Every structure is written in structure tokens, then in C-alpha cells.
């Protein structure tokens, strides 16, 4: 590429050293981020993976135990089985529904005039931005007759005694799923809103000329393919969120919850890690969760590549 040594460059085009040297500016630009990323993300993650092969109670130095944590997880830990089952239920139900809700609402909001659009975005993003707003559900789901849900059902004579919703095994998952869906318009939603703003408007004009007739066709053939990068990003966010559900379960159902009805992989991880101080074991749980997410993500990316074809 340089003016003088064009021939020489072409000859060595495939040599790694030359490639690196030619892109010196790129390496300078990524350096600040990746140096910090190495110290504050890569190193801690690698340490955790190593710790997953040890017994580590935070106070004493870790003792290497090989695969013990993993065999214990899969062979001896009954709660982990419940946790995996519940997490998969969340992943299969709330994951895809949340994802489509994000997309649907972002798309509908984009149909309105800009002023209305900004207002609607605020209203729908509100549950995610106001921190612990989901604690409001404690009022609705209160176990005595003062709880809103119990109050309504009693008034309408559907039940004749209040139900302790979040302490009754068969209801716990149902309500956790509802609250989680209510919370789902978060990072992915905002990204989709921003993604819709960056779509080249001339594409819509061209599509209209090419005979796209209604908003559904426009969505499938123009909008979605144009925002594929955002769709892939949204999928990763959704997967990490649905697989890592914990706060809502802990605050509404307690940790540990009644008969572990609301246990997820992360509540189990927090139970062993921050309550029982078994950091080695907790790390092993994190590694399994990580592998589950990576696998699901591979699948999701494959599906999303088919959009708009």
C-alpha cells in the first residue's frame, strides 16, 4: 500500500508481520480497551475457571480437587437439577417471547411521529430504568388479603381464602415468568429502537417503488434484514438475561425459595457462593451456565441469519 515499496508489499502480502505492521494504527486504537479488558474481565474469568477445579472457601487458599465439583453437580446435587429445569423453562418461554416483544414494541413505536416516539420509548422502558420497580409486584402478590390480586379474587368470589402466591410451589414459576416478561423491554429494546433510526430511508423508497405493499412486507424484506447486526446483539443480550434470571426470583420468592420452586442456576450459584462460601463449587456452576449460554447463542445466531430470506 505504501507508495515506494508497492512491489515489495505485494510480495509479502501474506506475511503476518507485514500485515500487523501495516495495521499499526488499528492496534493502537484497540489497545486501551483490550488492556483494561484483559485485567478486569479476561483475568477474573480465567481465575474463576481455574477455581472451579478447586475447593475454595474464600478465607483459606484453594485446594485442587480435579473434576470433583463437576461430578458432585451432576450426580449428587438435586437442587441443581431443579435449577437447570427452571432456567431452561425461563430460557424457552421468556427468552423468545421477550425478544419478540422487544422487536414488536420497538417497531410499533417507530411507526409513530418522533415526539410521540420519544414519549412511548420512555413509558415502555420505564420498568427497566427505575431500578427495583419490580418490587411493586410484592404489593400485587402479597400473601394476605391485602394483596391486590388476593383482594380482587376475593371480591369476585373466585377464592374464599387468600393464597400465599409466592410461597405456593405451583404458582411461583408462573408469576416469575409474568414479572420477567414485564421487565423484558431492556437493553435489547433500546438497541432495536436505535437500530431502526439508522436504517437508510432510501431503502424504503426503493422498496415502495419495487412493489412492497404493506407494513408487514416492509418489515420482513427491508427493516429486519437492515438491522441484522442489532438482531444478533439483541439475541446475545436476551440469552444472558434469561439464563441469568436471579434478582426477581430472590426478591419475590426468596432464596432459597419454598422447596426450591423458584431456584435458577444463578440463585443456586449465589446460594453456594455467597451464603455457603463454596466459591469453587459456585465457579463450576458458572462454567456450566456459560457453556449453556454459548450453545444457545450458536443456535440463535444460526436462526437469525435466515431472517428476510
Amino acid at each position, binding site marked *: 500500500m505504501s507508495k515506494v515499496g508497492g512491489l515489495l508489499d505485494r510480495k509479502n502480502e501474506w506475511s503476518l508481520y507485514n500485515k500487523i505492521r501495516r495495521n499499526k*494504527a488499528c492496534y493502537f486504537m484497540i489497545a486501551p480497551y483490550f488492556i483494561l479488558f484483559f485485567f478486569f474481565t479476561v483475568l477474573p474469568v480465567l481465575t474463576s475457571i481455574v477455581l472451579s477445579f478447586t475447593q475454595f472457601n*474464600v478465607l483459606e487458599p484453594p485446594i485442587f480437587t480435579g473434576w470433583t465439583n463437576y461430578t458432585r453437580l451432576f450426580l449428587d446435587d438435586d437442587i441443581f437439577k431443579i435449577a437447570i429445569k427452571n432456567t431452561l423453562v425461563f430460557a424457552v418461554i421468556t427468552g423468545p417471547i421477550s425478544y419478540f416483544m422487544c422487536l414488536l414494541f420497538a417497531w*410499533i413505536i417507530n411507526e409513530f411521529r418522533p415526539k410521540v416516539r420519544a414519549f412511548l420509548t*420512555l413509558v415502555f422502558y*420505564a420498568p427497566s430504568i427505575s431500578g427495583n420497580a419490580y418490587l411493586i409486584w410484592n404489593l400485587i402478590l402479597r400473601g394476605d388479603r391485602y394483596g391486590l390480586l388476593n383482594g380482587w379474587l376475593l371480591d369476585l368470589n373466585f377464592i374464599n381464602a387468600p393464597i400465599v402466591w409466592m410461597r405456593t410451589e405451583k404458582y411461583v414459576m408462573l408469576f416469575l415468568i409474568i414479572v420477567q416478561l414485564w421487565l423484558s423491554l431492556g437493553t435489547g429494546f433500546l438497541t432495536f429502537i436505535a437500530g431502526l433510526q*439508522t436504517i437508510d430511508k432510501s431503502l424504503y423508497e426503493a422498496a415502495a417503488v419495487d412493489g412492497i405493499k404493506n*407494513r408487514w412486507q416492509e418489515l420482513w424484506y427491508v427493516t429486519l434484514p437492515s438491522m441484522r447486526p*442489532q438482531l444478533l446483539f439483541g439475541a446475545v443480550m436476551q440469552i444472558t438475561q434469561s439464563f441469568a434470571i436471579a434478582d426477581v426470583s430472590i426478591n419475590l420468592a426468596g432464596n432459597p425459595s419454598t422447596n426450591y420452586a423458584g431456584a435458577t442456576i444463578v440463585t443456586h450459584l449465589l446460594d453456594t457462593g455467597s451464603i455457603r462460601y463454596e466459591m469453587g463449587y459456585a465457579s463450576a456452576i458458572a462454567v456450566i451456565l456459560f457453556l449453556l449460554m454459548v450453545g444457545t447463542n450458536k443456535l440463535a445466531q444460526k436462526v437469525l441469519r435466515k431472517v428476510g430470506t
Partner: protein
Amino acid sequence: MKKRLRLKRIRNRSLNRSMAGNAVLFFFMAICGVFMATPLVLIISNAFKPLDELFRYPPMLFPRNPNFDNFSDLFILMDNSWVPLSRYIINTIIIVGGGTVGHVVIASMAAYPLAKRDFPGKKLLFNIVVLSIMFTYQVTQIPNYLIISKLGINNTYLALILPSFAFGLGLYLMKQFMEQIHDSIIESALLDGAGEFRIYWSIIMPNVKPAWLTLAVLQFQQMWGTTGSTFLRDEQLKPLQYALQQIVNGGPARQGAAAVVTLIIAAIPITFFIICQSSIIETMTTSGMKD
């Protein structure tokens, strides 16, 4: 004539839209909107409720005798705090401002070469970042603490700010948006003799304004939410969020002040969100240079 009308409708984005469809969408959004916004309304009205109404079950959506007692209670409480309120505010500005601006700049600076340049190792680096997002942060906290102690930045602002620069989310988000920019803009800038940094700052960043504003909102929320109590031992270094949480933990006698605290905790990121959101939507009407 017909053609001109059609072009005008295209300009206004009203093409391929039916009235009936618009009406259905409007009603759907109104119903869902009420459902989503209720807790926010409750947070606002709680701040103005006198104590007896705060403890009433079922809670009322709107206060019967609204007043500002809770606000004055909070100010009296904050006035009596050992560290002056202004100090907490300055700490917050440094931590939240530094963390947000730094992350947006550093992450997008790294995202540009990953999205648009071809150099050895780029795929690997990017994949590592995406994978890192999927690792549960709860277990990395202890290694993280050890590393921050070893680096000697424990009990300084840097312990909160530096790690926040390196969150995976920002880089991934920015890279995804930058991918959509046409190569032709970059090529013509290169021909004009612009350096890589110049291209990043004056061509790429203006083009992905909705992306970095969104990232700023997300990062602001994240930084605003941290109390920093793991790393900051000195009271003089702690952010407002920490001071406010102490009031919430004060028990039933402080419920009134706590309701105002909840409002403040929600109001700050919402204000920031509104500012950013209106410029995200503004960019749509002005960005004509995509190709």
C-alpha cells in the same frame, strides 16, 4: 401529479400505512403503556404521600393530601450527614461521568477497527468479548477484587471507573452498528488523507450517533446504580447512591424520606434518558449521508 403525491408520502413515511392499522396500533400501545407505566406513577405519587397514606393497603395510585413533607425530611437527614451532600454529588459526577464518557469513547474506538478494518487477530479478540458477556459476573467478583488490590487502586475512584471502561457490552453494541456503515465513506476519507483516528472521530462516530447515545444511557444507568461499597472504604469517596441507600435502610421511621429517595434514584437516569432519547430520534431526521 400522482407521482409527486407519492413521493411526498414517502418523505413523511406514510406510505404502505392504513388508517385502520394505525388505530389498532394506537389502542394496543395505550393499553400496554398503562400497564408498563403504573409502577413509575406509584413511585412519583409515593414521594408526595403523607406517612399514613404510605402505609395504607391497598396502596392508592394518587395521594389524597399531597405535600412536600417527605422532601424536607430528606433534606434535614442529608444535612445532618457526616460528609456534606455536595461531596457525595461531586463523587457521583466523577464516577458516573468518568465511567460513562470513558467507556463510550474507549469501547467505540476499539469497535471501529474490529468492525471496519482487517487485521490479524480481530476475529479472535471480538469473539472473546462476546463470550465474556455470557460469563456470570457474580463469580468473578472475588478475582476482580484481588486484581484491583494488586494494581493498588483499591479505595480510589479508579477502582470503579477503570473496570467500567472494559465492559463487553459497549464494544459489542458499537461494533454491530458500525458494521452497517458503507465502506465507501471510509475509503473516500482514506483517499482524502485522513488517518484512522480521524476517520473514527469525525466520520464513524457522527454516523452511529443513535448507537453511542444508547450505550451512554445503558452505561449511565449501570454506573449510577453502583454504591461502590466493595472498593471504596473512605466515606468521602462514596457516591450519592450509597448515601441514599443508607436512608432507605433506615427503617419504618424514614419511609417518607425513603419514598423521595426512590424517586430521586429513578429520576436521575430518566432525565438523562430523556435528553439522549430525544437526540437519538433527532438524528433520524438529519442523517442523509448513509451512502
